[in-house]
């Protein structure tokens, strides 16, 4: 269900015997394996490959290296021209400094609390809604789903103001529910979950019903265990999105002891030295990078799940 789309293909290049190992192709693309393994084909291929690997590393990884080492430099070294490629005397002082100045402990705790709380609430709401729409088929179910999906058409920046006004009216400023309620109203999650629930074989559910399971029991014991892959994808995206979110927490969580990591960094960055800022940024990026390392497959599968078939 969550393979990224690598197809088992024939290995064509193997038959050709030339100098060195032939370049093996898992599946056929624009350039044929034959062309690829011709003398010039191979030369061009390796040149392109090296260029791409080097330039991608420079473009996408080097900024992060610069951030991490920047935080290990002293105040004088970071302002030095020309800059040093390696920190002369690597220190962790700026991390300590950043931790105190930004109050990173509080910010991290807040962000984790908002993300996981929001995730729990969002999953409870969206899973049960998708289950009802997919399996219990209420009257006007189609209309409701349509109205939920219609909210995806409205640009986020446009709803920002009326949503803010609503939250102010309800007195939810500086209250985690001000983040959690709007996050749960996520039409895309419901759409993804419902589509997966639709694909569960009828017989499975009917068998459970014959055994006397009510709707809640069917959801808990049959539907949820089968739906692990999609639940994983939706969970990761919900948590990562709320961890990365900036504009909405900026408006809702305004007290300095209730801010999220992103907002806290943005508010204090003007008053702090450059290496301390970098220390704060490293701390803010570590959780998402760890999540990416662990759940890379799920994330990449989820990325394409909605768009390709949608």
């Amino acid at each position, binding site marked *: 269900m969550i393979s990224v789309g690598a197809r088992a293909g024939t290995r064509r290049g193997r038959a050709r015997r030339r100098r060195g190992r032939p370049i093996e192709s898992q599946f056929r693309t624009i350039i044929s394996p034959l062309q690829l393994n011709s003398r010039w084909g191979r030369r061009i291929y390796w040149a392109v490959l090296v260029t791409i690997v080097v330039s991608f590393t420079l473009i996408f990884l080097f900024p992060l290296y610069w951030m991490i080492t920047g935080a290990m430099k002293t105040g004088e070294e970071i302002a030095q021209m020309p800059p040093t490629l390696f920190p002369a005397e690597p220190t962790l002082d700026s991390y300590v400094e950043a931790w105190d100045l930004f109050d990173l402990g509080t910010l991290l705790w807040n962000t984790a609390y908002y993300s996981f709380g929001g995730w729990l609430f969002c999953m409870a709401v969206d899973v049960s809604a998708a289950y009802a729409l997919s399996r219990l088929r209420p009257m006007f179910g189609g209309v409701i789903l349509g109205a939920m999906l219609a909210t995806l058409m409205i640009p986020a920046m446009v*709803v920002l103001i009326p949503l803010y006004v609503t939250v102010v009216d309800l007195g939810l400023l500086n209250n985690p529910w001000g983040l959690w*309620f709007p996050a749960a109203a996520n039409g895309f999650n419901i759409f993804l979950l419902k589509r997966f629930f639709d694909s569960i074989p009828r017989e499975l559910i009917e068998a459970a019903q014959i055994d006397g399971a009510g709707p809640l029991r069917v959801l808990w014991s049959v539907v949820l265990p089968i739906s692990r892959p999609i639940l994983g994808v939706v969970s990761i995206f919900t948590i990562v999105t709320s961890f990365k979110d900036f504009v909405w927490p900026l408006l809702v969580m305004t007290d300095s002891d209730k801010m999220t990591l992103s907002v806290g*960094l943005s508010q204090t960055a003007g008053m702090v030295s450059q290496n301390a800022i970098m220390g704060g940024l490293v701390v803010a990026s570590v959780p998402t990078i760890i999540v990416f390392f662990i759940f890379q497959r799920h994330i990449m599968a989820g990325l394409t799940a909605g768009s390709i078939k949608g």
Partner: protein
Amino acid sequence: MPVLRRNLTAYGFLCAALLCFAVFAWYPMAREFILSFQSTNLIDPPTWVGLDNFSYAVSDPAFADAWLATLQFTFLALACGYVVPFVVAVVLNELRHARAYLRFVVYLPVMLPPIVAVLLFRWFFDPGPGLFNQVLGFFQLPGLAWLDSPTTALISLVIVSTWMNMGSATLIYLAALQNIPSELYEAAELDGAGIWKRIRHVTIPQTRLILLLMLMLQIVATMQVFIEPYMLTGGGPENSTVTVAYLLFQYAFTYQNYGSAGALGMMLMIVLLAFAAFQLRLTREDKT
């Protein structure tokens, strides 16, 4: 009565979601409409002001500049952010090595919180010890003012935005490319089509739908650009980076003029929905 019971249980499961959507999605949509015809500061009761909010927004000298900057930004961001990921995906799809590494690396910036990318690049753009001018200096090139000059500020924002967003488009294209049946390429090759013609007549038509879809999504996303001007330039220098979303934010949260922010939001929404409708028609025609 089983039908009634089934409906009752179904609405039991649905009620939390219905409540969330009603209060935090559907009601704000209606409220946006109402807000744009009202004057309110959230404390006193709102008053109806007809089209005053719209005329206020339109007569604001920043209005035309904001739309111009937004269109420029969108155009530049698409020139990079739309074309580059597709080209990158096509090239990556041809590679037989290091695929996992390249996919990982290109998506890494997308995982970072945007504030990290933005604050990191703010440092790189620093005309003094910033990385970019140091690299230019290393190659004996003159440094640029980046965010401090009206001519380069917008481009600088496009660079940040492309760096932190292009990964997702690249991976989506990559997945679409892998779904192209290899027979099509073989047939094209037998018919004597060169590499360019294979791209032109196989790759692009086969990915047309996803290309159109991504174009729409990216236009809608880039026209709402906010965090980059908010954090990097504050709309300056000389208002060259005041985008519509930034102006809207300023109306509401700097001047507490929620009505005009609502009016500006309505205009932005109409433009974006027009794009979406146009795109939908294109994809419809594509199917018939």
